[in-house]
């Protein structure tokens, strides 16, 4: 286990260029008007890929201690729990929309 992974400059540029291309792609797919709900699915999927690339190769989780990776994944799990349990309430209300 080494906390001192040194990435080459070429590699870091490669990561950034990949992220630039994915950013362009996520804008470009809105021009072809994918029908609901797939446009949201595609947008989120591209964002998840980009975030994974940043976490793995810029934040060095790929080479880092597994424990840091587990912490990161657990935060996402608890976020999904928050959203999931909240939606179980808000999606199934008889009188769904509050005044605010």
């Amino acid at each position: 286990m080494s906390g001192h992974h040194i990435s080459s400059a070429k590699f870091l540029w490669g990561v950034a260029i990949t992220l630039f291309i994915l950013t362009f792609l996520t804008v470009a797919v809105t021009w072809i008007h994918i029908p609901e709900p797939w446009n949201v699915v595609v947008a989120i999927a591209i964002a998840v890929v980009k975030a994974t690339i940043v976490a793995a190769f810029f934040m060095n989780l790929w080479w880092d201690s597994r424990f840091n990776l587990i912490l990161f994944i657990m935060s996402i799990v608890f976020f999904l729990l928050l959203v999931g349990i909240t939606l179980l309430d808000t999606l199934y209300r008889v009188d769904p929309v509050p005044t605010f």
Partner: protein
Amino acid sequence: MSQPSAVEEKLDHLQHHFIDSDQQFEASKLGMWIFLVTEILFFGGLFAAYIVYRAWYPELYLLASEELHTFWGAVNTFVLIGSSLTVAMAIRSAQLNQIKGLIINLWITISLACVFMVIKYFEYAEKIEKGILPGAHYSYDGIEHEKANIFFSIYYMMTGLHGIHVLIGIGLMVWLVFKAKKKVFHSGYYTPVEITGLYWHLVDVIWIFLFPLLYLID
């Protein structure tokens, strides 16, 4: 008695309660990751609000996001990814003992962060001019939806909290430049650069989600 040697490792940074530099570095990084977990959950609350209201008013999000300029949102995405690259380069410079490169890369990162904030300022100014303010202060009538203010409350909260994080990041990196100029960092000790980098990448990751969720609804 240990003999002082000319190539003795610099250990000024090592706190007495750590065995060695590596243990201290790993402990700092673990601490930063725990902080980042709280950051993810902090923003998570806002993302949850976004999701709940989008499920309630899907048509509102379609209408209201037309007020946001995809072009400038995309430019800011490129700017932040670019700044993530330069922060990674700054860490690489520190690891290789290239202190000049470290300072240059930090300055480029600070500049890109400022570009982001300037673009954000013009976006906010344009909306405030039109009366697009959060909550009860909303007075714009260009959107045919009685709950239009809700979208913008969420917009201002999410981008505002993110913007505050960018400003804090700028402050941290200015501090790193001063430390670097005082020759504090070298290949054996660059922990503050590393963990500020982690923070900065997280700010980038948050924006990677904010951009499609707010600007790219068509």
